[in-house]
């Protein structure tokens, strides 16, 4: 009973994990963006430090983003044990839509029709390259 509560079977379904992983990737990018933006004006340091985003480490949002990123990575490794790479890669591309949506809703970024058009082209391009990417991943 406790085991069932701690490890619900549906949560470990690889396809559920694939969707959950996409949400984790989205969350991590939004959190890193928030941490990086918040610390931009707070700490005035030299050029290299700013280019490398070192000040962002002062924000707990950044650390929360790093944690979420690591979780998304673990989820991805788990998914690849069960789901063929071609399918997993095709589905995970949904982050290219989820992230701008998150930017619009949570960060109030102005996402213009031109930008959406570009994003649509990127997704179409990636889907057309799918087979090549799978081959490259297997052989490189």
């Amino acid at each position, binding site marked *: 009973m406790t085991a069932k509560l701690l490890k619900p079977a549906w949560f470990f379904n690889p396809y559920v994990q694939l969707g959950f992983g996409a949400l984790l990737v989205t969350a991590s*990018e*939004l959190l*890193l*963006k928030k*941490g*990086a*933006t918040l*610390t*931009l004006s707070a700490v005035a340091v030299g050029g290299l430090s*700013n*280019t*490398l*985003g*070192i*000040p*962002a480490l002062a924000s707990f949002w*950044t650390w929360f983003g790093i944690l979420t990123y690591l979780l998304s990575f673990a989820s991805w490794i788990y998914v690849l044990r069960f789901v063929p790479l071609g399918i997993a*890669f095709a589905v995970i591309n949904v*982050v*290219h839509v989820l*992230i*701008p949506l998150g*930017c*619009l809703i949570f*960060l109030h*970024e*102005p*996402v*213009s029709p*031109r*930008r959406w*058009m*570009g*994003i*649509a*082209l*990127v*997704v*179409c*391009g*990636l*889907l*057309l*390259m799918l*087979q*090549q*990417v799978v*081959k*490259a*991943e297997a*052989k*490189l």
Partner: protein
Amino acid sequence: MTPFAIVLCIVCQFLIVIGQLFLKRAMTPTPHPHRPAHFTLGILCLTLWFFLWLGLLAKTDLSKLFPFEGLNPALMAIAAWLLLKERMPAGAWLGLLLLCGGIALVASS
């Protein structure tokens, strides 16, 4: 986006691909004499990628930066084409063209 930021974005995608390939080499089941070097180089590339990405995030919209991530799988396919002489069908070339066009459109938005 400044030309410098665009170059940094592209450098980021190269770093992540090179880092991943080094780590993959380091993780082969049979031990290899260069394993520690591959592992260190892989971690170095990915660390540099992460901090460059944070620096870019501080100044640029995430919705503008993220489409550049699409270059990551595309670079893998190009690497397989160049290094392993893996044949690229016309559809994949068209995909690459759409991807680059999309990124240019986003960068100029």
